[in-house]
């Protein structure tokens, strides 16, 4: 069984992580895939200077995400004797998590409850809500 855990780099992500850890502990031969998506759109507007430095920034963003969020999460899972690996991608959070889960043939996605609140989530919906509505793989939302 494969489980995809979507992290958002905030404390709520830890809850998703420990929930996934619990399920995996009870399941035989469970592989955990920790996913962190850096919000990015190919249709945003940038200055020429930003474009020239984009590749460099992308590498930096990925290494920061690896260092601060993903690697510690994977470590805590492997320390608990579980099989885990990490994926960091740029893109729309909901779409990217769904695409990865679908491509990996995962049987479930575990994410935390939306951390966005107020006007933003009312206008655009949260990533979690979008994921729940559009995912092709069952989603568990951890409160």
């Amino acid at each position: 069984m494969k489980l995809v855990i979507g992290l958002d780099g905030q404390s709520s992500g830890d809850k998703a992580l420990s929930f996934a850890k619990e399920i995996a502990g009870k399941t035989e031969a469970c592989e955990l895939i920790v996913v962190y998506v850096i919000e990015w759109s190919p249709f945003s507007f940038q200055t020429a200077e930003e474009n020239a430095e984009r590749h460099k920034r992308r590498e930096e963003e990925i290494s920061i995400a690896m260092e601060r969020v993903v690697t510690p999460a994977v470590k805590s899972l492997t320390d608990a004797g579980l099989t885990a690996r990490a994926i960091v991608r740029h893109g729309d959070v909901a779409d990217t998590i769904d695409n990865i889960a679908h491509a990996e043939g995962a049987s479930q996605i575990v994410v935390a409850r939306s951390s966005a609140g107020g006007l933003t989530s009312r206008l655009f919906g949260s990533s979690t809500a979008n994921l729940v509505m559009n995912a092709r793989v069952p989603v568990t939302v951890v409160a």
Partner: protein
Amino acid sequence: MHKITTLLLSVMAYIAVSLPAQAQEAPASLDARVNEAFANFTGPFVSFIFAPIPGTSFPWIVMWLVIGATVFTIYFAAVQFRFFGHAIGLVKGDYSDPDDAGEVSHFQALATALSGTVGLGNIAGVAVAVGIGGPGATFWMILAGLLGMASKFTECTLGVKYRNEYPDGTVSGGPMYYISKGFDELGLPGGKILAVLFSVFCILGALGGGNMFQANQAHAQITQITGDYPGYITGFIFAAVVFAVIVGGIKSIAKVTEKVVPFMGVMYVGAALVVLLVNFDMIGWAFGQIFAGAFTGLGVAGGFVGALIQGFKRAAFSNEAGVGSAAIAHSAVKTKEPITEGFVSLLEPLIDTVVICTMTALVIIISQQLIIDQATGNYMLNEAGTAIATVDGNSGVALTSAAFGSAISWFPFVLAIAVILFAFSTMISWSYYGLKAWTYLFGEGKVTELIFKVIFCAFIVVGAAANLGPVIDFSDAAIFAMAVVNIFCLYFLMKVVRKELNSYASRLKSGEIRKFTH
């Protein structure tokens, strides 16, 4: 930081004051003195670039641009029409590898390049063209835009192919790189010298069309609303903000502008459509004027040749096809196939000239700001006989503003904001193009870069203070001088592009290159 800002502002003030003081004549306003010194200084360069072909009144440079665009269109068998659909697919991201998410997309490269070209050329430049060359200038402008798509395709493909990718992950590209590397690769001599020459003109172009013309017309637009006041005041304010962004590193201002400008562009086209819809019964008449004027001139100065020259000139100034500036902006894209950015870039003259410039022209014609002699059906000239007489004697951006204002009374206010933002974003883009040329010449480094940035800001003040005439002449001349070197080199390098095109086209046909399923 604050201290440096104050110091540099004082330096700029000194330059602005001392430059004209050395010129001549006693009691004249600061603006007038800046103007005179500037016109005297740039005169010979301008005369050379716009020298007529012997025995005619046709400037050789306009012929140069049109012949270039025509040669590329024929050489690549009308690539701008054959691959138009494919270009749209590329911009939509149909062919982008999902693993490259987070890199510069085709859309982003196109949007960045467009924000450098969509600006006052589309608003003020078109008004100048139609004001002097009459509605017929629009026809030639559209034709130049369509042909220019092939020039853009050629230069932007080369821009990506020969860019420099540095170990730290940043990229630099543009004509200076493809000229020197491309010529070396083909075993041709003189690549380095031509690249240096291009860089010199690119710096002048950045200071002229990418800076002074923008500052000048932004000031003209502001005074339309506030009433007249000295141009150097606007110049200092603009210079301070641009300084804060390019030297102070306050990127947030540039970021906000980059996000607002596209919406301003959409709003501008939207407002033009509203004006056209309100006067829909006159659209047929307007096109009639455009076609009739294209071949007869309808009484404009210089007849139909005058219309043609104005149309071609303003199209080239607005979409910069063949100039080489876009190759700098497009070269940052992430792609394994340089030719794909060529396809994407050919959309630029289409959006800039065929759509936006034509909208401006139609609004000016339909709003009947240009005075027609009812007896002959021809346009009446102003007292000096240099341009068509307008209802309120307006020219440049003021003419566009009055044209929109005649249909939507409050629009000049929105237009003023749009003009300021367009001017600002074009300045930021060109400060980057100029800087790339500058660092190509003098090497990269904090001090050399700072020198260029300070010069750039000082020219904003001069541009805002000088009159439209000398500023537009110098701006055109500098930008066209870039095209002289660039198109000359493109003739030698176009076979490289054709090889890429043939290889890509066959792989696209065989299905080796196909859409990614997202």
